[in-house]
């Protein structure tokens, strides 16, 4: 840094004057030249800048040092202006290198805000990153890795960052205090949705979502390891090294793009090496160990049961767009036998008047910017710290050429180290004093300091380094519910009993000193490997210089003027905490909800501890009595896209395709999702005006000639073993022992509570072999139910079964010419005459010249009908052969609509009637309930309530005026009764237009059911303005004698 006095007056906002950056100050601007605005986007050489004007060079970059690659030149834009930075920068460090401190406006009061931290705990510097569909709001500038062409915008300001009209909210702060949304804007209620809410939403809030589909992809992946190390700082590196050298499988996750944690943020010496060099050496050894996997840019954000951890790897967040076939982010499920949590600690700011001004930064962050990024965040600093680390801050500032105007230490006697460092820096030491208030608006330009003697002096500065002590990152140790305990020694919460399998090392455990962190990490890493079955030698610890980590906490500077923020992200002040206390919201969880303190993207990482200590003071309770809020995953914000992974859009729930799908596509079928399946709904033909025309034609074709329908989606279960018949007896309400080989039978099964679970036909293929079919929707549920019954209820039954749904393609061939059609497909040696294969016959035979086939004479349509099954791979061939064979008879395919029409005409129940609320009796199937055996649901089905005569039961319905359309869902009320809930008698479950009858028909559940045949009731449907007089009738509308299906 050049002469620190070069810029004497840090730019305050005033009338839009620039922030205290190098622009026009003669600090290297000329070389980079100010690029005046171009009328059109300029593709080169400044790609990131686009049409943006290029600002001056990195005037605040130190001449040497740091871990940025000075040979690289990244251009980027912020609010449309172009800047330069380097590989190894974050957006925050690059902005600071360009002198940009003002980066956002606050949530509620729209106050100007800068960069407080150098890490993921950042409450202020949230920006929108990228543009278009990739625009990502609320990105922390302090973690966003700089890349060439990065575009960022500030948030929550209007019309501009420097001049924000909504900053008038600050004047209205009396009504915007804690809980304001519970108190104001409440009346009149009519204005809430139309006026207040839109206004508040506009004024408050963070960034804007893009509103477009995310063009990137996300992955889920799984990792197994012996030892998971969370955090690649001093403790984490030693833990990984100690565990890695034993041969254990180690995964080391580091949130940052670079290993090292505080070791690369401070200038320390380990084994006579600079700390950043030591990190590089250890990192290289770890990388060379084949059993160690280092995941950089990876945040472990949740700890779950039994050593399960969730982590997010930002695979391609550091490039403009991910390379082809690579995900943007990867969501790791990590299964670890042992875990060493070495997540470090988060520094706390101090609470004083106007402590939110840009240029007020955490002292640790200032050291990070100096040591790691070679950026001086100011020229004239005031250090306000309660910890002995102030000495370190002073020496780093001095090395960076920053003039230190004053050191304010609230301790009456500053420690010797601080005193010596202040002297060395030539800074005035104000022991026993406090910063009362910061001055300046768009940037801090001074502080009012109260001395121990009680005087107030103003000290000009453009940087205030604040240090309030460290809060260990105990989150992962607490995700399973363990509350951390208060440590007076470090004035912070430390883990009490971490979850089984987890050890906590380093600053996360409250061991703030480097030597302790290294030793703790090495010890826990070795122990973790040992617990996982890998023994090894202790790792030799590096020699480190001593340090002092003492502190005397100062939770709040009393008697300040101006807003003293506790939570910067949510604009919660010390007065808000006091107000919450006065209004009775004293429990920490209430305090959080009432004031919003600790919410949003940072979850109070820099604010929670101070807030609850203030509450403890106000309520005269101890800190342990006050307690902490609950820690829940995720530790840091996670994009929904990362959680969804590949399960987006159609991949959210993959569709299963029946064997005839390709053929049906060729026919131009219209498809419908039926459960997990995509099925042909109908097959439109040229000239057909609407779906009803097509469906009517398909139904007529089946009734008059022959139709074919893919019914492979029905669940099929192959059941074998000597006790198969007994097993079926217990599963179904009807009997099976008298079912002969080569016969099929309809069965109905109940749940144990007496309600119908499912129905379907079961065929006896051999003495000890049955083929059970289920409905399409319940295939998986019935299989699972059978497995439970077999393994848990009746383990003594000797049966085996498995699903063969996907192994067999099955087609229904229905209509008067069904047998004629099949005759051409079934191999000639098999007799399929009515005598050989009568109604409800089942046969194993061959078709299409030797293909194994099964033929079942069953009918859902009420016509002469068969279902033919072949191995699934032959399904496509079979449908083509069937169509060919039936051409002479006028065959047509029919879809699920025609299938539905015909089953309604026949009064067969389906999913609409098997709705979980109907019993066998309600469906008119009570006579199937066997009296001579026990079966699932038998006892409960006989409960008085379920056998009552007025239970809604199945009936048919016809419109009295035959021209009227019926609607499923219409409720039945007696003629003349008022259509209110009390007079509800049931509802219509299924309707269809019957081509055979020439009018609409319906099935429904009505109180009394069969006893009401002949009565007239209203089918009342206020939602669709339906009110149709209907006649209750038998549910079998078509061929009630069943003559056709025996043809």
């Amino acid at each position: 840094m050049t002469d620190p006095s070069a810029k004497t007056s840090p730019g305050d906002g005033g009338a839009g004057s620039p922030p205290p950056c190098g622009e026009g100050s003669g600090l290297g601007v000329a070389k980079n030249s100010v690029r005046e605005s171009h009328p059109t986007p300029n593709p080169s050489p400044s790609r990131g800048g686009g049409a943006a004007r290029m600002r001056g060079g990195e005037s605040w970059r130190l001449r040497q040092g740091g871990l940025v690659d000075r040979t690289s030149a990244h251009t980027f834009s912020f609010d449309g202006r172009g800047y330069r930075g380097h590989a190894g920068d974050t957006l925050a460090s690059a902005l600071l290198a360009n002198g940009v401190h003002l980066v956002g406006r606050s949530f509620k009061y729209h106050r100007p805000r800068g960069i407080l931290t150098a890490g993921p705990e950042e409450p202020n510097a949230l920006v929108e990153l990228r543009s278009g569909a990739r625009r990502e709001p609320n990105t922390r500038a302090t973690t966003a890795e700089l890349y060439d062409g990065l575009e960022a915008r500030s948030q929550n300001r209007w019309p501009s960052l420097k001049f924000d009209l909504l900053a008038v909210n600050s004047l209205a702060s009396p009504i915007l205090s804690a809980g304001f949304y519970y108190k104001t804007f409440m009346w009149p209620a009519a204005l809430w949705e139309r006026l207040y809410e839109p206004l508040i939403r506009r004024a408050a809030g963070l960034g804007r979502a893009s509103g477009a589909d995310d063009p990137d992809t996300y992955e889920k992946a799984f990792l197994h390891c012996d030892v998971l190390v969370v955090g690649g700082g001093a403790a984490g590196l030693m833990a990984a090294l100690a565990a890695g050298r034993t041969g254990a499988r180690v995964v080391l996750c580091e949130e940052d793009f670079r290993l090292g944690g505080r070791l690369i943020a401070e200038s320390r010496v380990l084994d006579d090496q600079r700390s950043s060099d030591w990190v590089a050496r250890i990192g290289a050894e770890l990388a060379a160990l084949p059993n160690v996997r280092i995941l950089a840019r990876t945040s472990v954000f949740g700890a779950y049961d039994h050593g399960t951890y969730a982590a997010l790897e930002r695979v391609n967040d550091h490039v403009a767009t991910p390379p082809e076939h690579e995900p943007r982010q990867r969501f790791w499920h990590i299964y670890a036998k042992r875990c060493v949590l070495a997540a470090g600690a988060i520094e706390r700011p101090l609470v004083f008047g106007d402590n939110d001004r840009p240029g007020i930064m955490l002292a640790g962050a200032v050291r990070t910017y100096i040591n790691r990024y070679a950026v001086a965040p100011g020229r004239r600093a005031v250090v306000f710290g309660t910890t002995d680390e102030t000495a370190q801050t002073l020496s780093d500032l001095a090395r960076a050429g920053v003039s230190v105007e004053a050191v304010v230490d609230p301790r009456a006697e500053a420690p010797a180290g601080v005193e010596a460092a202040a002297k060395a820096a030539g800074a005035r030491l104000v022991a026993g004093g406090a910063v009362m208030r910061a001055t300046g608006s768009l940037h801090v330009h001074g502080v009012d300091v109260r001395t121990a003697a009680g005087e107030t002096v103003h000290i000009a500065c453009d940087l205030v380094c604040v240090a309030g002590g460290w809060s260990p990152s105990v989150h992962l140790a607490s995700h399973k519910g363990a509350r951390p305990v208060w440590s007076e020694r470090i004035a912070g919460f430390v883990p009490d009993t971490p979850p089984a399998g987890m050890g906590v090392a380093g600053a996360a455990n409250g061991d703030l000193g480097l030597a302790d962190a290294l030793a703790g990490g090495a010890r826990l890493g070795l122990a973790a490997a040992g617990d996982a079955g890998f023994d090894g030698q202790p790792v030799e610890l590096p020699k480190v210089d001593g340090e002092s980590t003492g502190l005397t906490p100062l939770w709040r500077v009393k008697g300040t003027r101006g807003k003293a923020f506790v939570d910067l992200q949510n604009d919660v002040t010390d007065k808000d905490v006091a107000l919450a206390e006065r209004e009775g919201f004293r429990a920490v969880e209430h305090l959080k909800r009432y004031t919003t303190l600790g919410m949003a993207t940072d979850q109070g990482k820099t604010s929670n501890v101070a807030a609850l200590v203030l509450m403890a003071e106000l309520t005269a309770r101890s800190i342990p009595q006050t307690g902490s809020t609950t820690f829940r995953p995720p530790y840091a914000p996670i994009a929904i896209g990362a959680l969804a992974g590949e399960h987006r859009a159609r991949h959210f729930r993959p569709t299963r395709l029946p064997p005839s799908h390709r053929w049906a596509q060729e026919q131009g079928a219209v498809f419908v999702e039926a459960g997990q399946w995509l099925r042909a709904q109908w097959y439109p033909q040229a000239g057909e005006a609407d779906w009803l025309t097509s469906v009517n034609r398909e139904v007529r074709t089946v009734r008059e000639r022959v139709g074919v329908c893919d019914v492979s989606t029905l669940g099929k279960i192959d059941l074998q073993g000597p006790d198969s018949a007994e097993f079926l007896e217990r599963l179904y309400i009807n009997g099976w022992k008298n079912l002969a080989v080569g016969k099929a039978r309809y069965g109905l099964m109940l749940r144990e509570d007496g309600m119908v679970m499912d129905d379907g036909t079961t065929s006896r293929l051999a003495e000890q072999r049955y083929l059970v079919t289920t409905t399409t929707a319940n295939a998986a549920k019935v299989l699972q139910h059978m497995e439970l019954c077999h393994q848990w209820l009746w383990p003594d039954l000797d049966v085996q079964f498995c699903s063969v749904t996907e192994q067999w393609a099955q087609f229904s061939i229905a209509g008067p010419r069904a047998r004629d059609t099949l005759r051409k497909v079934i191999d000639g040696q098999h007799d399929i005459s009515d005598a050989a294969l009568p109604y409800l016959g089942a046969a194993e035979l061959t078709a299409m010249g030797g293909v194994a086939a099964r033929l079942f004479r069953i009918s859902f349509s009420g016509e002469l009908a068969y279902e033919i099954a072949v191995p699934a791979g032959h399904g496509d061939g079979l449908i083509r052969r069937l169509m060919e064979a039936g051409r002479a008879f006028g065959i047509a395919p029919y879809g699920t609509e025609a299938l539905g029409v015909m089953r309604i005409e026949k009064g067969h129940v389906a999913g609409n009637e098997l709705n979980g609320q109907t019993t066998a009796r309600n469906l008119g199937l009570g006579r199937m309930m066997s009296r001579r055996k026990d079966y699932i649901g038998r006892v409960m089905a006989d409960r008085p309530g379920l056998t009552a005569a007025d239970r809604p039961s199945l009936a048919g319905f016809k419109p009295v005026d035959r021209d009227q359309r019926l609607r499923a869902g219409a409720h039945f009320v007696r003629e003349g009764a008022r259509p209110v809930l009390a007079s509800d008698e049931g509802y219509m479950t299924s309707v269809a237009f019957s081509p055979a009858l020439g009018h609409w028909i319906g099935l429904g559940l009505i109180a009394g059911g069969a006893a009401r045949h002949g009565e007239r009731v209203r089918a009342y449907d206020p939602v669709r303005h339906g009110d149709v007089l209907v006649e209750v009738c038998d549910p079998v509308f078509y061929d009630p004698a069943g003559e056709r299906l025996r043809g």
Partner: protein
Amino acid sequence: MRIDCCHCGPRGNEEFVYLGDATLERPPADPAAPLDEEARTRWHDYVYLRDNPAGPHRELWQHVSGCRAWLVVTRDTRTHAILKVESARDVALARAVFGS
């Protein structure tokens, strides 16, 4: 959460489905016997009544995306610690033999 399936070894909980209390026993059901009040109560409790214990609990899980075995998992409901995993069929067979 991880469950150590007695056939497949430790697997993530996304492979399993939960059913519930494994200590319930289906009441004896003789279709010839009349259903008295006590039997009705037993059935009602079997179908509807569930304890909500804090502590070790025996429950039925199925390794539905694995071997499809039903398992009796003893889990501490307070900590999710899994104390024991047994094959439901083995438990049921032993119960049938010893009538416990």
